[in-house]
């Protein structure tokens, strides 16, 4: 078996909670002993609601946040404790294309940052920028434009091109499509699939959008309150979810056809509504009060 592209072992991050006098009175476990493994050329989907620790994991992989404990190994090399720079093997596409490009710099200037930082010869940069723009299906003359002259989808393509500039092996996608229109989302995902095949990339795809994940990822991990509660092959997890939180997430996806409706897992309704995760889990542990519950198929 070959070496995995990314291996995360018992990764934890906790943030101290301080009182008004700056004294530490407790801690919030944003990420709690998470382990995962992504094989070369795979697309791994990390799902979870807001605040579940998805982005914190992405930031730790990129070296933007130091982990409290655990290890991150990218292509056989540990990146923990390297002074916050993860090098060229992993790159990240940020959630909001509106703020991940500097509004005062042209697309070309933004794209030349990684080239300059990694010593790409100056007289060849213009050619390489054109090549990168072409890779993400944008015309080369976009290099003269400012971000405010581009649409959301175009900006995200530029952000992808910038991440690819240093020829990374692992691309961390932190909700790359959540700020985009549905029609644009599909195009960006198609582009990513295509690039992954051509450039032999490995993806860590972080999202709360399960229908997107079902199409894009081969493996998924479901994150709830900083812990991976369920992980495995995408088809298996989606067809036969074992954990209540996964079922709840799947049941919350809006569906439009009968066929999709049948794929939905059954979850108990509390007072006729889809319950919150906390309520549902409390219910399963027998801690629920006298609320009337009915087991129904779907919602």
């Amino acid at each position: 078996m070959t070496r995995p592209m990314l291996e995360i072992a018992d990764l934890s991050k906790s943030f101290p909670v301080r009182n008004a006098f700056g004294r530490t009175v407790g801690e919030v476990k944003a990420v709690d002993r998470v382990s995962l493994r992504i094989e070369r050329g795979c697309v791994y989907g990390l799902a979870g609601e807001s605040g579940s620790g998805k982005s914190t994991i992405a930031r730790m992989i990129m070296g933007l946040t130091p982990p409290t404990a655990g290890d991150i190994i990218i292509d056989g090399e540990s990146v923990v404790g390297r002074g916050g720079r993860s090098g060229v093997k992993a790159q990240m596409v940020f959630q909001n294309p509106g703020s991940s490009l500097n509004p005062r710099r042209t697309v070309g200037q933004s794209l030349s940052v990684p080239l300059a930082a990694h010593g790409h010869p100056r007289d060849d940069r213009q050619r390489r920028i054109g090549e990168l723009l072409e890779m993400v299906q944008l015309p080369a003359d976009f290099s003269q434009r400012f971000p405010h002259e581009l649409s959301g989808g175009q900006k995200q393509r530029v952000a992808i091109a910038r991440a690819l500039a240093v020829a990374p092996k692992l691309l961390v996608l932190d909700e790359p499509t959540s700020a985009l229109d549905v029609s644009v989302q599909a195009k960006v995902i198609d582009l990513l699939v295509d690039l992954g095949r051509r450039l032999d990339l490995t993806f860590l795809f972080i999202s709360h959008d399960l229908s997107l994940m079902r199409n894009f990822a081969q493996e998924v991990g479901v994150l709830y309150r900083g812990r991976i509660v369920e992980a495995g092959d995408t088809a298996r997890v989606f067809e036969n979810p074992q954990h209540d939180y996964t079922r709840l997430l799947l049941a919350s996806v809006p569906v439009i056809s009968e066929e999709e409706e049948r794929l939905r897992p059954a979850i108990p309704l509390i007072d006729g509504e889809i319950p919150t995760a906390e309520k549902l889990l409390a219910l399963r542990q027998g801690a629920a009060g006298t609320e009337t519950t009915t087991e129904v198929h779907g919602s």
Partner: protein
Amino acid sequence: MSDEAVAGVRRLSNAYQNWYRFSRNPTAMIGLTIVIVCILAAILAPLITPYPEHVGAVVNFRARHLPPSAEYWFGTDNVGRDIFTRVVFGLRVSLLLAVVVLGTAIPFGTVLGLLAGYYGGWVEIVIMRVTDIALAIPPLVMALAVAAVLSPDLINSMMAIAALWWTWHTRLIYSITRQIRTQEFVEAAETLGAGRFHILFREILPNCVSALAVKTSLDCGFVILVGASLSFLGLGIQPPTPDLGTLVASGASFLPDYWWESVLPGCAILFLALGFNLLGDGLRDLFDVEDVR
């Protein structure tokens, strides 16, 4: 067309759009006109003034205390020198003061603000506490103290003002940097391997430029007022070289009979400071729109 040429045209059209919006703002245009007229007048003073020799120690007692007329636009002073000539030459001192003070205060204050805002921690604590202390001292008092210890002249006054003026720029740039540091494009640059110098001066600084331009323009007006106050108190450039503040001071002893000797140089100070303030307001309106875009 080559890429360079395309870039040039795009930049030009952007600049033209900005100029168009700026030129539609009447008060901003008035401010710009005043500033340009004053700067040109100061540079060309020996050519455009009617009596350039009156700058020095010229005495012409037959023409003393003459009211404004076609011959002497602003009247004459107690030794018969043309006040208009002396006012135009006085602009030179005021503008020089503004350029020197802001020319030292802006780079210094900007770099400190960037460092404090970006690094945080003890760097921020040291820089910002020193800034707070310096902010607590009024520039005028500082200039008086320096003049008392050293000697009352223009260079010392300029040093005294410049030594305190950077604090405002540090505060401004610090607060903007704090906001920008957490934005994703800064983090993106970090993960892409860009150096600290690049992040500070190429990613963050360009986002401070509009605020800095407005602040600088408004500051010019204030520095000129402080400079005029200093020379009114006799701490500025020494006679016979004319300065707006000195002109007001020397004319003040002949109030109210020979009112033009202090009121008209005073109007010149007002005019100059007003010009810079209107220009600053106009720039702020321009950049506000740009940031919303």
